[in-house]
């Protein structure tokens, strides 16, 4: 079942190609607007698919998925924070900013996991898509709370207004709006009309993902220069934290939500992945004292490649082991 060939799915190969192109200092350039366009497309596509599936299923299942997502979104940053403070011995503000990234999710990793399942023809539950949409916000808020706690004693009045704005931003950021909005559209639009637009999202999806990952590979490799700044103990955190997250996610998916191997993998990936699109600007605003070189390098340069290349197959192996032989 598990051979190298599982990793030869095109999405991952394109990620590797982008990584390599950057390593050999190719002049290959990806227009930033193209990356934005591809990410809009992917989020809408995920949302529509999720919405169509969700329209078919029961509300009770959806509710427990929502509850699990909230639990993960609020709980994981606390675990990350504790590790960063007590084990890595990082200062509190950087710890708060980094924690928020690990409580949130990476849609790119999520979709790569779906591509992985597709390539093995393993089915999966549709609830994890709701969880994806929901997990962005709580982590941002917890990050904010941790940062405000950390600042106690340093006294600063201006923070209140920023905090209020950030809570607003946490719930209205572009990814959340696109995911939830398209999910709703997928659930309520009339089927004939949906039938007309879905080819655009079905047939191109994996191809668009491959181009997106090509760019993300370049982006990840660009971060390698900052490894020095990050230091060895944080780099280890960038690999251990996704594994801890994945363990929590596997338990949640298997025991709490009762998913099969496919769905359990997706929950593990949600818990293991760290945001590198929505959370960085939020933390930049919320905790300007924290260094983007740390949180971006960890989420984009360490955890993202680790999950895409090693994590997904590893978590799936565990999910399969939990789910037992089919």
């Amino acid at each position, binding site marked *: 079942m598990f051979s190298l060939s599982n990793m030869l799915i095109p999405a991952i190969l394109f990620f590797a190609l982008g990584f390599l192109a950057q390593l050999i200092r190719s002049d290959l350039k990806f227009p*930033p607007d193209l*990356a934005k366009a591809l990410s809009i497309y992917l989020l809408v596509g995920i949302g529509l698919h999720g919405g169509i599936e969700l329209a078919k299923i029961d509300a009770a299942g959806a509710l427990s998925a929502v509850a699990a997502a909230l639990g993960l979104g609020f709980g994981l940053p606390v675990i990350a924070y504790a590790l960063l403070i007590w084990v890595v011995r990082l200062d509190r503000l950087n710890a708060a900013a980094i924690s928020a990234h690990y409580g949130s999710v990476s849609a790119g990793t999520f979709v790569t996991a779906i591509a992985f399942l597709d390539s093995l023809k393993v089915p999966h539950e549709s609830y994890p898509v709701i969880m994806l949409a929901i997990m962005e916000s709580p982590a941002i808020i917890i990050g904010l709370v941790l940062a405000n706690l950390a600042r106690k004693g340093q006294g600063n009045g201006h923070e209140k207004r920023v905090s209020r704005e950030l809570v607003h931003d946490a719930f209205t950021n572009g990814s959340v709006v696109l995911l939830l909005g398209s999910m709703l559209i997928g659930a309520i639009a009339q089927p004939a009309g949906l039938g007309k637009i879905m080819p655009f999202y079905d047939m191109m999806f994996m191809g668009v993902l491959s181009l997106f990952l090509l760019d993300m590979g370049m982006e990840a490799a660009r971060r390698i220069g900052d490894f020095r700044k990050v230091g060895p103990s944080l780099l280890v955190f960038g690999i251990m934290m996704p594994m801890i997250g994945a363990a929590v996610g596997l338990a949640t998916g298997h025991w709490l939500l009762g998913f099969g191997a496919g769905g359990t993998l997706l929950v593990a990936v949600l818990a293991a992945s760290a945001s590198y*699109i929505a959370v*960085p*600007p939020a933390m*930049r605003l919320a905790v*300007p004292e924290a260094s*983007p070189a740390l949180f971006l390098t960890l989420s984009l340069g360490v955890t993202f490649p680790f999950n895409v290349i090693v994590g997904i197959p590893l978590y799936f192996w565990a999910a399969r082991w939990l789910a037992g032989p089919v």
Partner: protein
Amino acid sequence: MKPVKRIEIVIEEIELENVIRELDRIGVVGYTIVPHAGGRGERGVRYESLQGLGNVLMTIACDERQATRVIDAIRPILKRYGGICLVSDAMWVIHDS
């Protein structure tokens, strides 16, 4: 032509809204924004990306009195989030003179 102060600010894209709010508060109506900027400073390299962590370049032409107020309003933002602010002299070719 009328002598004015030319204020040139480089800040992170995500800070732009805050700066405009300050300008509104002070009553500065006119400004020009150039997006997609990158750069390097004490806080490392910045470039346009999915995250919106690139820079924007803002230019404000105003009289000396307003310039002082703009600078005072901008300074804490620069202190907190980084960026630069340069002030120089220029002549404004007014439309009707």
